């Protein structure tokens, strides 16, 4: 068993033999390993953490044992985190150790592979949005939105401190935005929504010359496709405010290019491609116009040439970054989500343009079909917004939403409770096979 190996009481990943350790100690002139630590006695730690070492096998069993406490549910859940099927080839290629165990590309001559992959990721986002400049990732959609807000303050010519966001915004996203807004003294305010989309006249009343940025989403957190993005963009620009649009790469494969509706910045979670569900693990995308290039947060990969005049890639415009500009950097983000961006680019390339458009169209028709089927159930109205949906929609239930959620969980299904009598349902290709059973269970619990 694994406990019989020679590293039972040390790190299995610190490979020196006892003889080597002794020889090395001799070279550095130390009697033993402990004497290498230059820690004063008064702050030295001589206790135990109380963490027992386990073998690989025992650790696996422990993790499996813990995770088995999770209920086995088929998740019809969305609201910003989506389960789309990730092909095996993505797992396989992304797991190649030259990608997985490399660092930020500070020596581009031996990091051309990752740099090219990130350049391709940036190129994909440029095509999807119609904007000019994509960085090569942020943490998630919420932190990307926070960065967009601070960018708006830097680039906007008139001083202003209000960030306007839709009334229907995921709570976590709004909370992160508020945290980012605190340092630069920005104020986050909501504008109303009517029937699932922005109330444009109400937004016109809210917006003013002190507005730094207007944010809208399509699809919204309720899965509604926002129909008046152009009007929202016009309102923002009439007041010299930045127009920031939230979306995701699958939706963008089908929806009108953000550049064509006036978006100055596109943020969102690109993890809808490449990761599946991972408890909220994200991939923030950040795309903007060229005029804001030098204010963009995060890393950028650029094309150049090497000394042999061949195309080569490198991190560029690093004077924006904290390792050079310190407190005058555009952001503190350093480690980002590079490997997730690699996975997303791989997944998009695997699908190709036909596959992406098909997948996006399926996101519309699957939601429409499932809403129609739920609407046939007595005591259920779906969708509550008579609009186009993407992946998800709200259903009104005569029974309390909390009871619907609990009863469905007992039957092996998960949906969101949104309000007293509102539940939200999300469907993707990973749950299509379970739809018939889900509708049957819904019929029972909605009585």
């Amino acid at each position, binding site marked *: 068993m694994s406990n019989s190996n020679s*590293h039972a009481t*040390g*790190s299995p*990943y610190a*490979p020196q033999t006892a003889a080597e350790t002794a020889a*090395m100690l001799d*070279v*550095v002139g130390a009697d033993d*390993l402990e004497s290498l630590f230059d*820690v004063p006695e008064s702050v030295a*730690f001589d206790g*135990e*953490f109380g*963490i027992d070492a*386990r073998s*690989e096998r025992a*650790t*696996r069993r*422990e993790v499996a044992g813990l995770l088995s406490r999770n209920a086995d549910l088929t998740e019809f859940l*969305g609201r910003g*985190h989506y389960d789309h099927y990730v092909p095996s080839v993505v797992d396989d*290629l992304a797991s190649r150790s030259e*990608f*997985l*165990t490399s660092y930020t590309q500070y*020596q*581009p*001559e031996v990091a051309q*592979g990752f740099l090219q992959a990130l*350049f391709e990721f940036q*190129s994909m986002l440029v*095509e999807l949005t119609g904007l000019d400049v994509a960085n090569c990732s942020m*943490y*998630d*959609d919420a932190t990307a939105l926070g960065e967009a807000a601070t960018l708006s303050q830097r680039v906007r010519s008139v001083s202003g401190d209000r960030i306007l966001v839709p009334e229907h915004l995921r709570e976590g*996203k709004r*909370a992160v935005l508020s*945290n980012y807004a*605190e340092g*630069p*003294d920005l104020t986050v305010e909501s504008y109303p929504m009517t029937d699932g989309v922005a109330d444009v006249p109400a937004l016109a009343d809210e917006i003013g010359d002190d507005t730094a940025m207007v944010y809208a989403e399509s699809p919204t957190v309720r899965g509604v496709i926002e129909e008046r993005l152009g009007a929202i963009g016009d309102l923002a620009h009439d007041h010299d405010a930045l127009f920031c649009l939230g979306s995701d790469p699958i939706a963008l494969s089908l929806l*009108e290019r953000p550049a064509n509706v006036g978006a100055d910045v596109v943020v969102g979670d690109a993890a809808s491609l490449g990761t599946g569900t991972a*408890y*909220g*693990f*994200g991939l923030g995308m950040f795309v903007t116009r060229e005029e804001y290039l030098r204010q963009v947060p995060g890393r*950028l990969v650029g*094309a*150049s040439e090497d000394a042999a005049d061949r195309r080569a890639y*490198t991190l560029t415009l690093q004077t924006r970054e*904290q390792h050079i500009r*310190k407190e005058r950097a555009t952001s*503190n*983000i350093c*480690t980002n989500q590079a*490997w997730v961006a690699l996975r997303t680019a*791989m997944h998009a390339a695997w699908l190709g343009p036909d596959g992406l458009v098909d997948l996006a169209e399926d996101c*519309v028709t699957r939601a429409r079909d499932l809403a129609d089927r739920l609407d046939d159930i007595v005591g259920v109205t779906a969708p509550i917004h008579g609009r186009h949906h993407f992946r998800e929609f709200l259903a009104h239930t005569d029974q309390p939403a909390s009871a619907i959620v609990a009863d469905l969980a007992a039957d092996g299904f*998960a949906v*969101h409770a949104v309000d007293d009598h509102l539940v939200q349902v999300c469907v993707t290709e990973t749950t299509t096979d379970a739809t018939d059973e889900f509708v049957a269970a819904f019929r029972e619990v909605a009585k």
Partner: protein
Amino acid sequence: MKYDQARWTDDSDDLYEPLLSEKTSKTVDIEDSPLPDDLTRDSLSLPDPAEPELARHYTRLSQMNYGVESGPFPLGSCTMKYNPSFTEDVAARADAAIHPGRPDSTVQGTLALCHRLQDYLGRIGGMDAVTLQPPAGAAGEFTGIQIAKAYHEHNDDERSEVVIPDSAHGTNFATAAMAGYEVVELPSGDDGRVDIEALEAAVGDDTAALMLTNPNTLGLFERDIEHVADIVHDAGGLLYYDGANLNALLGRARPGDMGFDVMHYNVHKTFATPHGGGGPGAGPVGVREELAQFLPNPHVRERGGNYEHYEPANSIGKVHGFYGNWPVLLKTFAYIARLGDEGLRDASAKAVLNANYLAEQIEYEVPFGPFHHEFVASAGEQDAADAAKRMLDYGVHPPTTKWPEIVDEALMTEPTEGETKRSLDQLAAAFNAVAGDSDAELADAPSRPAAKRIDQVTAARNPQLSWQALDDM
């Protein structure tokens, strides 16, 4: 060796062609969509490789990339250590794929694991409570500084400055500014450590916090840490521990015992979770009891055998849209469980031994000392960046260059515990070969990798950041 230089040098120029190019992209027209025309785009142009082509493309790209499993990677302060395959397997478990929108009662396993990891990290750092939410070290810094800010505001004690040593990581400065603080830069003393007199002059009623890395970026332990803590605490400030170098202290000293009030852990440095070419990381934050009320929402606690999310009384809110980088946390848990007390102690001991051994072997001047896990050599008359390029020709990854600035032509080197004596000797040989090379040889380097020296000036002057922007398309 998977890092196959020979193979790519023989390849054609096509190798440099991005996937999203005219050769491989395809345009589809969007008609008959389930949406009205005014909501949809009319076409989409993206690459369209067949799966075998895709596999070859990315396999080839991987061969043009250097990782820890390609060879030594002694990037000082970045801490590139061997990443066990085993932790990858654990994180890839199908049953770890959970949606964050589930009720707590249906994710007891996930929450139990989070709770156990919070507990482990608290013990390792000497902290009373730990949040797992920050998705990277810099995000951890932001969380920690927001907590410090909330603490002062809670006590009606508005403070405007954060004090940071000149040798600190650039993220410290950026984080303090991002949180709305003025930065007071603290010059290092002649011994490379905090200058107590300078500290006393810098700290006062406006000091919200001192951000400190210990051992610092020169690999030196701040021996006066208790005195430093007293000065900051007496002024009413908090002491923030940048966990980037915690791997040098595991089981020998704990930030909480040294007087630090709040800290972040770089799990990808202290433990071993792959850097992934620049992320994902995770930056859990630990605090002492008094600050636990300010932790991000939600926090995980155990009640009567059940685990639940809850909002700490005076929470700073959220720093990630959901719960942080969960797969990275899972790897961290697996790594800590595998090593246990003795393994973690051993990892630190070997990391420190390796750094001191390597420092002893190389011919460049290595000022200061004694070192913990890293040291900063000076390339002296050579340009450190050129010296680094030349090291690529000797088949190893170079150290971090030109930083920290307090050492001329810095070569900041951290071998980590993952290197054997043999690979350290290989590294030392590379250093020493470069030390003996002429300026002309350095200026022409690298010659061995397929990509020769890359023109970074042109890249910045004429930014071409996508295939669509390429001049020669």
